[in-house]
């Protein structure tokens, strides 16, 4: 895997774009499916991702894994669900356009073609207008200042309290929890149908997490998969007995 530094990308789409570009791949759904594992591995290993930004990285991870699962198990998905992968592909293409534009802007800034304003100084204005330079607003009083200052402090107190929006931190079922759940299911039932496992998910993210959990358990050789023919139901049993 290629080493990335934080300077090379900013945010999940930046990371995804550098992965795609380092493999010299075009932005297509198929390539996104190919790159999914690398992305997940990077996010998992990365220590320099701000915890507050992790949620955003995970959203993209979920989308990638969804695309990957769709590529691997197309029969699980109906046509109406096409959009998710299409959406990430579009989003990344567009992001890339802006990244390219930002490079051009960087070049423009580097040319240092700053435009300067005429100086607005007292001395210069006095030449034009010979009048006392103290011109107070008529309505301002010490009490108005007091009232204003209290309002500013109240706003600041509010701002200091503002944390990440709650929705960003919505609890998502994590893989470990799902793994425990699958183990429990296999313990209870001996054999579980893969499609049933996915159907039990209440939303896409959970479906992806289920899929990941199964992959993880497969990797750890805890599960045995059986399939009668291509695209038919996959039966899962535990390897531990």
């Amino acid at each position, binding site marked *: 895997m290629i080493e990335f530094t934080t300077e090379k990308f900013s945010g999940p789409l930046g990371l995804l774009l550098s992965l795609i570009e380092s493999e010299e791949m075009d932005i297509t759904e198929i390539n996104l499916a190919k790159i999914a594992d690398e992305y997940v591995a990077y996010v998992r290993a990365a220590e320099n991702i701000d915890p507050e930004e992790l949620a955003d990285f995970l959203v993209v991870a979920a989308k990638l894994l969804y695309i990957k699962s769709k590529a691997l198990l197309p029969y699980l998905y109906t046509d109406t669900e096409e959009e998710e992968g299409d959406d990430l592909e579009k989003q990344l293409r567009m992001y890339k356009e802006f990244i390219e534009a*930002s490079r051009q802007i960087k070049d423009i800034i580097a040319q240092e073609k700053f435009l*300067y304003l005429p100086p607005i100084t007292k001395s210069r204005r006095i030449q034009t207008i010979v009048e006392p330079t103290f011109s107070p607003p008529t309505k301002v009083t010490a009490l108005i200042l007091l009232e204003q200052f209290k309002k500013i402090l109240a706003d600041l107190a509010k701002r200091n309290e503002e944390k990440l929006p709650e929705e960003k931190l919505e609890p998502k079922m994590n893989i470990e929890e799902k793994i425990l759940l699958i183990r429990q299911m296999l313990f209870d039932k001996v054999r579980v149908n893969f499609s049933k496992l996915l159907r039990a998910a209440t939303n896409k993210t959970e479906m992806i997490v289920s899929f990941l959990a199964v992959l993880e358990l497969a990797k750890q050789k805890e599960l045995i998969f059986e399939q009668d023919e291509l695209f038919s139901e996959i039966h899962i049993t535990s390897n531990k007995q």
Partner: protein
Amino acid sequence: MTLKSQLESLLFVSIKSLSLKELAALTNAKTNEIEEVLRTLTEDYERAGSGLAIIKNNGQYQITTASDNAALIKEFLKSETSGELSQPSLEALTIIAYRGPISKLELEKIRGINCSLIIRNLLIRGLIEEKFEKTKNENYYNVSLDFIRFLGIGSVNDLPDYKKLNKSEELAAVLEEIK
């Protein structure tokens, strides 16, 4: 005096940038007439290779030095150029420049990541401006005239590929989902 002359004088002495509306009130002329004269003035400066330029952003106008003299003036004023922009800031700034007025939500949809902190920093540096849109009950962001001056261009329209990126259909499709 002609309207052109009056506009030139007003822009020269004003502390802040002036809008067509403000200029209209000051000169008793119509806004479209003023817009036309300012366009001519901008072109006149360019054609004559003048040391001055007129820049425009979001309906606000300012008179500045010509971009080709930037190095000389920098040397003369011994001005320090403001610090580097981080990659995330540059990205956000680019998107706001091409797509402004843009809401925080739209910006985050394009970047795929929370942008609160970056917006706050860009506001403090004066490179973007915030405007509350009553009808949408949301803040919208635009680049500022200081950004235009920082780049040494006449307006956002002079940015490379502005038309294409400003009207991108893919972008419209992505942003459509937010609604």
